[in-house]
């Protein structure tokens, strides 16, 4: 790990604080992790704030706001009289998250880098490094619950982030505190305000950090050679327009098609080989709906939590409602047709409030 001026304070941690368990808290500079710091302090932990510096590309007009986030995180830690460190995971993040994401897009799938980041960085590298440096626990500002070694839904169903956490290791969950497990977002905001945290009103971060404000499309363009191609209507094969790279289109997507007028078109199919994107006006087009999804890379948190009859609830995207399904081998079967989700996205399993794991849509 490169030693910079910012990390100087890192050398001095854990002095004379042996009486209380030590928690290394991942801090992003946002309101959730900041309030987590307050709660952990109130619970009597010796809290060490850690900013994870992940990979960011710094080009003119393309800037990840990491320096400001770092300053925000450090400001909160300082105000709360906490030790603070920077863990530099740039290299690992590039390899494990960015390169994976690019490979997935190149293969025509729609990956979820946040899930990969939690699995590989936050609940692996961060967990390991923190443990090495004497942490009894790690903590993050995620809306999720860790109970008896199980990953469970947060009280705030609307904010629950277990969708992004289903692949994190069981060892890490056992040693993770989620201080926001029992809180609702408005309460979190209120706490931040009460404690005079400057970032209480900060806009919530959306999307992937390293892409910053420019958006995924501009980012991908930097790395992937794009070939323009035809947009055809599924039913008629008629050429309706041209796209600027098939990888930018996700099945079920409605926006961004350069075909105007009348009813909206939906992306229903991509032929990467011929570089054709197929669209349809027909919301009932069979490619848009399915009763079965086949998964890859399935991660089961604890087989014994699985209902014997295979009847589970699944979540198809973050914040989407839970829907009943049956898990059989590597298939998820639904009673009624559901709107398909793109290859590369995750399907996450639940039973009651326990997250059972999940898998990645094959394709």
């Amino acid at each position, binding site marked *: 790990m490169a030693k*910079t001026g*910012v990390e*100087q*304070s890192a050398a001095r941690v854990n002095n004379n604080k042996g009486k209380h368990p030590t928690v290394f808290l991942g801090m992003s500079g946002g309101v959730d992790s900041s309030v987590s710091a307050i709660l952990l302090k109130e619970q009597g932990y010796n809290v060490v704030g850690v900013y994870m510096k992940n990979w960011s590309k710094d080009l003119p007009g393309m800037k990840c706001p*990491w320096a400001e986030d770092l300053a925000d995180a*450090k*400001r909160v830690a300082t*105000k709360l009289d906490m030790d603070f460190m920077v863990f530099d995971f740039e290299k690992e993040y590039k390899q494990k998250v960015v390169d994976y994401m690019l490979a997935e897009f190149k293969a025509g799938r729609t990956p979820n880098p946040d899930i990969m980041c939690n699995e590989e960085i936050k609940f692996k590298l961060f967990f390991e490094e923190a443990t090495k440096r004497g942490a009894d626990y790690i903590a993050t500002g995620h809306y999720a619950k860790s109970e008896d070694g199980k990953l469970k839904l947060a009280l705030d169903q609307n904010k629950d982030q277990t969708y992004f956490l289903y692949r994190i290791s069981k060892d890490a969950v056992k040693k993770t505190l989620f201080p926001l497990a029992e809180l609702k977002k408005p309460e979190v905001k209120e706490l931040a305000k009460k404690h005079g945290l400057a970032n209480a009103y900060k806009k919530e971060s959306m999307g992937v950090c390293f892409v910053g404000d420019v958006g995924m499309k501009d980012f991908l363009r930097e790395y992937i050679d794009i070939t323009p191609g035809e947009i055809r209507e599924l039913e008629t094969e008629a050429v309706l327009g041209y796209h600027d790279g098939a990888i930018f289109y996700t099945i079920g997507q409605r926006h961004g098609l350069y075909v105007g007028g009348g009813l909206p078109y939906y992306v229903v199919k991509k032929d990467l080989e011929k570089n054709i994107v197929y669209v349809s006006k027909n919301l009932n087009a069979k490619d848009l709906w399915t009763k079965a999804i086949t998964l890859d890379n399935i991660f089961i948190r604890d087989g014994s939590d699985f209902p014997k009859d295979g009847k589970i609830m699944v979540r198809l995207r973050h914040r989407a409602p839970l829907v009943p399904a049956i898990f059989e081998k590597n298939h998820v079967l639904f009673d009624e047709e559901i709107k398909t989700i793109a290859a590369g996205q995750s399907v996450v399993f639940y039973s009651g409030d326990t997250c059972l794991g999940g898998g990645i849509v094959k394709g």
Partner: protein
Amino acid sequence: MIYLDHASATPVSDKVLRAMTPFMTDDFFNPSSAYLPAVRVRDAYENAKNSIANSIGAKGNDLVITSGATEANALAMTVVSKNGKILVLETEHASILENVKKYKFDIIKVDKNGLINLDDLKSKLSDEVELVSVSLANNELGTIQPLAEISRILKESRLDRLKRGITTQLLLHSDSSQGLALLELNIARLGVDLMTLNSAKICGPKGVGALYVGHDVRLTPLTSGGGQERGLRAGTENVAGVIGFATAIEAIRGHSSAARKKYTALVSILKKELEKAKIAPIFLGNAKHQLANFLPVSFPGLDAERLVFKLEEQEVYVSTGAACSASKGEPSHVLRAIGLTDTEIAGSLRLSLGVLNDEENVQQAGKIIRKVVDDEVRRIYG
């Protein structure tokens, strides 16, 4: 609030604001228009430029108004020919160090106080060097550079070139963003060919600067268009900004000696207070060659950024190193250049005094900083 960061920004004075306002409202006309009200605006603009120029012993026509010091610095560099080389000081502001990368360049070293190493300058003055850029005073340490002496060295070098039949230009540029209020500047006496002036550091508006361009100095415009600023900087004139700049510069004229005296006294109050801290402060640079309002100080072993946040809670505002490098999360290249260790750099604050300071608030700030330093010492060492 106690503001100890005048090297970053200064408040626009009431007088400046009052002078500017009409040129954004009643007298909004484009100075290039033909009708009389516009002509009057043109006159006011030219008068303001004259006033700015006069304060450094130049004429209004010698100035190119810019959007600030960064643009003026970039414009100054366009003076070099395709094969020409630029020499810059290693402690220059990013606006110099980043822009110079577009040219052939070399770096001149500084000594442990941040003063230019004149022997290094001489050894690097090869025949291809066309421009030497040395700021009047450094923005982190306040070190005042011996411009007149540098100019003499360049003059000798020019003579030597002529003797050998070489006619390549050799010019001196200086960014005077820091120090404009505290030093009497005279173009002829300093012997500079190009000088950057900045309104934002002297209680004028931000977004206005100027480049003094000596006679026989040929620049290449960065933007083209309507031919404003003698064709060197196209775009409708920032009339209100220039009026504000002129008003600000007039306000400091003739007061530099009194200002130096005032800040020397205030800095010594601050120093005395800081010396009582539980960790011995290192005052950076050499006061003899330093702007009177600068107090760069390191508390080795502490994290200056934490001090900034702790002080912010008590409404005392200071910078670590330079604001620019701090926001990039990189340790200051200036402090590195004067040979500080990583620990010393990490513990460095830049305190810079100005119009918002007096004996009382400086005394109080000193006490607050000392307390915050002591608290951090306690947190770390128990």
